[in-house]
């Protein structure tokens, strides 16, 4: 059984990692953030059916039907994250144009 709180916690960390490579720091730490978001989304997709909310009486309420659609979304985002990871490895993300613009904004950025 995976507690709902743990599932939410991993979801929050994964979303923060996703926002790091997608919005906040596109030219920095893409390996780390896209890697973390891939692992996070893959985990969310795999364990979604095992998530339960434990009531005050101690009986678990299984949320597999509710989270089934979340599992599909997480699976799609896991693939996107791995795609970003691959593109970064091939120097295709962020695009060289974006990177030049951000370099102008941040002259202290380290070179590759």
């Amino acid at each position, binding site marked *: 059984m995976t507690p709902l709180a743990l599932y939410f916690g991993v979801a929050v960390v994964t979303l923060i990692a996703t926002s790091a490579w997608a919005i906040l720091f596109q*030219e*920095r*730490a*893409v*390996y*780390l953030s896209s*890697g*973390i978001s*891939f*692992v996070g989304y*893959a*985990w969310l*997709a*795999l*364990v*979604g*059916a*095992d998530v339960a909310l434990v009531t005050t009486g101690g009986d678990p309420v*299984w949320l*597999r039907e509710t989270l*089934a659609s979340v*599992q*599909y979304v*997480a*699976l799609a985002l*896991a*693939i996107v994250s*791995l795609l970003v*990871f*691959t593109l*970064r*490895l091939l120097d295709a993300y962020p695009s060289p144009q974006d990177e030049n613009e951000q370099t102008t904004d941040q002259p202290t*950025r*380290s*070179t*590759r």
Partner: protein
Amino acid sequence: MSDGDTMSQLAVVILLLGLAVPGLMTAYDFAGTPIEYEQSASVDVGGETVVEEGTTLENYGDEISVRTENGTELAPYRDYQWNETAGTVTWADSANTTDGQNATIAYQAHQRTAVTETAWDVISPLFGLFGLFAFVASVRTLWSTIAEVFDR
């Protein structure tokens, strides 16, 4: 952390992906969710009845409920033995059990759902890419190191 240093790229690739594969495999192994089943059976004193929900089975629940056709709830150990590993009910010779008597076995099987299986079918082939990633990152690191040596 910057992506600029090829050595740190390699470290991230190996560390992250090296931990990801065993972690996700373990998550899949324990992704079963308890599903309730009922099965009709015929009491066979001294014999066994196998409950079978074999597909994607992680394990069975440690308790079952067995009721005879006249509504009597049979007691574990006295009337039957439940083997949660094999998924078998061994019928005992007791005052409540009679050969040929119809009974209903209610049990729990921890199984992975179809969505979980789909997710695994999509994610697991991607693990093969991780070796390739490590190789590419290694080559880049080596290339960068050699270039630095010749630049001096």
